[in-house]
């Protein structure tokens, strides 16, 4: 048995098996953290190997235990999926490496093994969602990752983390249930759960009403999971009150996995089979996306808590991603995929910088961070550069995604031009809310009588700067995400224009 051929299964199995092992460790040493980090790093290596295979040979199909689909469990890993695997495993590994110290600081030691165990469960769940080729397995993994994420968020240092988690839990459960109802309807009509099989059989279904209801449930359910406006209320608080390292991990990838499922499900199963579905998809999502990036940015402008500000900025960014997809064109879907990758880099860097500030200042209120530019110059410089990337300044990844998004919008005549105007307006808002932070940190004198904190630990800084440089590296040479997206686009659009 060649191990390389088993990589799709190992991608999920490794963290899933390590999770209970970590739970049984004692909380005193650094062992739980070390084992979790090693597991996550191993997952990252597997993701890189898978990416290489996909880049070389095209999409991979894997049958669990050799049972052929649709009877056995099939895994399907296309270029888009590998992009997501890279994002998820990369974010998890970086967050762990970066946040080991802050986790000790923010979470009680006795809880650490359980917490890291949950981390691995969440990781395994997210990876499972990405590699699954089967609608029901996606649901199962979604539940695994969500339940584990609730635990992670609830471990935050502030008691408000509990109410934030509760909101997250209710919304997440509703979302998952909606998704399951939708899948149930489709199973009823087609008798299959395998996505590819479903796509093939849906064309033969004569009674379309249950299918249409299913599309509604699935879109809304996944929209809730993805924090699509106006179903975003759970997200900013969850990121704000979670431990810093968890915020880095979840902000970079958790909602994007839901978006991944949404895009894949819709483009593979519904659009080829339902006449007029494309128009419905666009006219339902596009206004929501526009509202998302406008409202998210406006709220961020008026927000006075740094992590919440970043949370609302994420609401806006999710709007950008789905806007690209809802344009249903090659350029649009490329923009969506690119921005999934790019936004992970941006938000990871921003939350890392915010976490470092929190570690030293113990507060996320902007007014308390006055003078941080002088007290913690490296951290704030990293924040500023990542902020440029968020705004979409050339040479950064943010620019590349916005460029594609705007080119995609321009294909749509006058309406597209209006859309471009709105995107730029929202970018201007991003300038304002990032500038707000910069001005407080650099141009306002430190609060009277407050102790001036030391710069963040070198270890944290070096990881922060690694991600910041990643923002520039992939902004100057975006060929990796671009080639993966370029391979996926024909499959997603399936020959449709």
């Amino acid at each position, binding site marked *: 048995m060649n191990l390389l051929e088993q990589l799709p299964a190992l991608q999920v199995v490794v963290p899933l098996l390590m999770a209970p092992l970590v739970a049984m460790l004692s909380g005193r040493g650094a062992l739980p953290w070390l084992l979790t980090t090693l597991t996550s790093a191993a997952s990252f290596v597997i993701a890189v190997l898978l990416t290489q295979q996909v880049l070389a040979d095209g999409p991979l199909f894997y049958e669990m235990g050799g049972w052929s689909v649709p009877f056995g469990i099939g895994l399907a890993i296309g270029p888009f999926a590998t992009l997501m695997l890279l994002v998820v495993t990369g974010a998890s590994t970086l967050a762990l490496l970066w946040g080991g110290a802050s986790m000790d600081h923010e979470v009680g030691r006795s809880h650490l093994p359980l917490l890291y165990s949950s981390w691995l469960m969440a990781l395994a769940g997210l990876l499972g969602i990405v590699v699954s080729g089967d609608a029901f397995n996606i649901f199962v993994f979604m539940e695994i990752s969500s339940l584990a994420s609730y635990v992670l968020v609830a471990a935050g240092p502030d008691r408000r983390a509990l109410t934030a988690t509760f909101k997250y839990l209710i919304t997440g459960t509703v979302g998952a249930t909606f998704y399951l109802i939708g899948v149930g309807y489709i199973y009823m009509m087609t008798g299959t759960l395998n996505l590819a099989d479903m796509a093939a059989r849906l064309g033969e279904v004569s009674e379309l009403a249950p299918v249409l209801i299913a599309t509604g449930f699935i879109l809304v359910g996944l929209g809730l999971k993805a924090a699509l406006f106006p179903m975003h209320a759970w997200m900013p608080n969850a990121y704000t009150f979670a431990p810093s390292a968890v915020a880095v991990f979840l902000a970079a990838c958790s909602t994007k996995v839901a978006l991944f499922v949404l895009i894949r499900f819709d483009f593979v199963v519904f659009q080829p089979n339902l006449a007029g579905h494309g128009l419905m998809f666009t006219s339902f999502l596009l206004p929501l996306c526009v509202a998302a990036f406008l409202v998210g940015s406006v709220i961020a402008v008026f927000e006075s808590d740094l992590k919440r500000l970043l949370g609302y900025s994420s609401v806006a960014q999710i709007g950008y991603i789905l806007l690209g997809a809802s344009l249903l064109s090659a350029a649009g879907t490329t923009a969506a995929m690119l921005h999934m990758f790019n936004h992970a880099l941006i938000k990871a860097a921003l939350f890392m910088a915010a976490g470092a500030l929190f570690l030293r200042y113990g507060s996320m209120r902007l007014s308390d961070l006055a003078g941080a530019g002088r007290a913690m110059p490296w951290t704030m410089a990293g924040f500023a550069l990542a902020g440029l990337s968020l705004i979409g*300044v*050339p*040479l950064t990844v943010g620019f*590349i995604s916005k*460029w594609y998004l*705007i*080119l995609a919008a*321009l294909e749509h005549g006058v309406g597209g031009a209006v859309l*471009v*105007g709105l995107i*730029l*307006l929202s*970018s*201007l808002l991003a*300038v304002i809310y990032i500038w707000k932070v910069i001005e407080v940190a650099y*141009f306002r004198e430190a609060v009277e009588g407050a102790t001036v904190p030391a710069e963040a630990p070198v270890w944290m800084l070096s990881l922060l700067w690694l991600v910041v440089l990643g923002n520039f590296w992939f*902004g*100057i*040479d*975006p060929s990796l995400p*671009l080639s993966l997206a370029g391979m996926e686009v024909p499959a997603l659009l399936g020959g449709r224009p």
Partner: protein
Amino acid sequence: MSPQMQLLLAVFLPLLGAVGIALAGRWPNLRESVTLVTAVGLMLLVWSFLPQVLAGERPQLVLAEMLPGLSIAFRIEPLGMIFACLASLLWIVNSVYSIGYMRGNNEKHQTRFYVCFGIALSAAIGVAFAQNLLTLFICYEVLTISTYPLVAHKGDAHSVRQARVYMGILLATSIGLMLPAMIWTYALAGTLEFTPGGILEGHIEGPLLGLLLLLFVFGVGKAAVMPVHRWLPAAMVAPTPVSALLHAVAVVKAGVFTITKLIVYLFGPEFLFSQTGTQWLLYAACFTIIAASVIALRQTNLKRMLAYSTVSQLSYVVMAAVLLTPISQIGTALHILAHGFGKITLFFAAGAIYTASKKTELNQLYGIARRMPWTMAAFTIGALSMIGVPPTAGAVSKWYILGGALGTQNMLVVFTLVASTILNCAYFLPVVYRAWLRDEDVAPKKDHGEAPWPAVLALTTTALLTLGFFFFNGPALELEAQMLAGD
């Protein structure tokens, strides 16, 4: 050193200098030496390109290609060469002046001041040598952001508010108007490279072209075509060396330079003005010239008067670029130089007056020339250059612009030139008259003489440059002729 290396170094040397300045921050003498050495090094680097460029070579350097047709690249063409020569030469003079001014006024945060200056210069050279619009846009934005701390230097509520106006207008116009125009251009032409003859012909026409031009002209807020000129008076809260080098030369010239470059290398002048719906730019420029002069007439603060004079003079460049006769195109580049020399002299003088006497208002200047003869002599030369009296630099450029206007029988432009010359006289000559020929109305609190010697040295130098340019402008003319010949 290969031309590529040299080009790379020219763009990044001031940035490296900024790093050096930051490191040397604790030792003021060393810090100022770093500034001066960097400035001299930059000038040598830039000016040593002159023979090559005059010989018709166009050194080029591609730093990175992000997407097809979208790259970070630099290329030296004649117009950019003129701008870079001007900025690098005046940076030296300005650095000498800054040392006198900043120390004479005991300003705080001097290290930050010099660091930001270095970054701004790097960006200005980047604007000058940009090979495509994207590169230019990046450098343009860096220039805006790096000058914010300079404008807000004082740090009190008033200057922070003014600095926000400054940056707000410049960022909002560039992101809200210039960026969409750039994306639109890319969507139309598939490239953003500056190409002689333009890249837009055959892709767009009629009113849409006029709209694109509108987006560009007002998107390049630094050119201060009305109504996007308000940032320039706001920027006057900055220390005077900033107003002198940045808001009389580097930043504002980056604006009109960008517009000229867009017209020449992106639209293609023949194509642009063969279309209907593009003539409005001429009217906008003429209006700005007159309106800004009228506003300058009503100012009571010396620096604000100079700022409005700058707004007016910038539109001369735009107007000359739009006139489209070869002779007025020459006037474009000459005026970038001539106004640069003249206006920096005026600001140096204003700063010297402030340093020596803390005077900022026009009605305080009675008889001041007796105490500060060198300063006021330089001021007078600068003022004559603004008006266009020989033998000053302003006379040369006005001559060419007027020649172009007469050649095309464009009476609107001729009228504008005459009217604005009269207005220029009306607001500059009273200042000169009061300073030289009237007596002091109240004796100053302390008996002052000239400002510290570095400041006097600097303003004398630029005044001499203003005079000298009247006689020695051959290389600039030659470069212009090359640009007009199609490259």
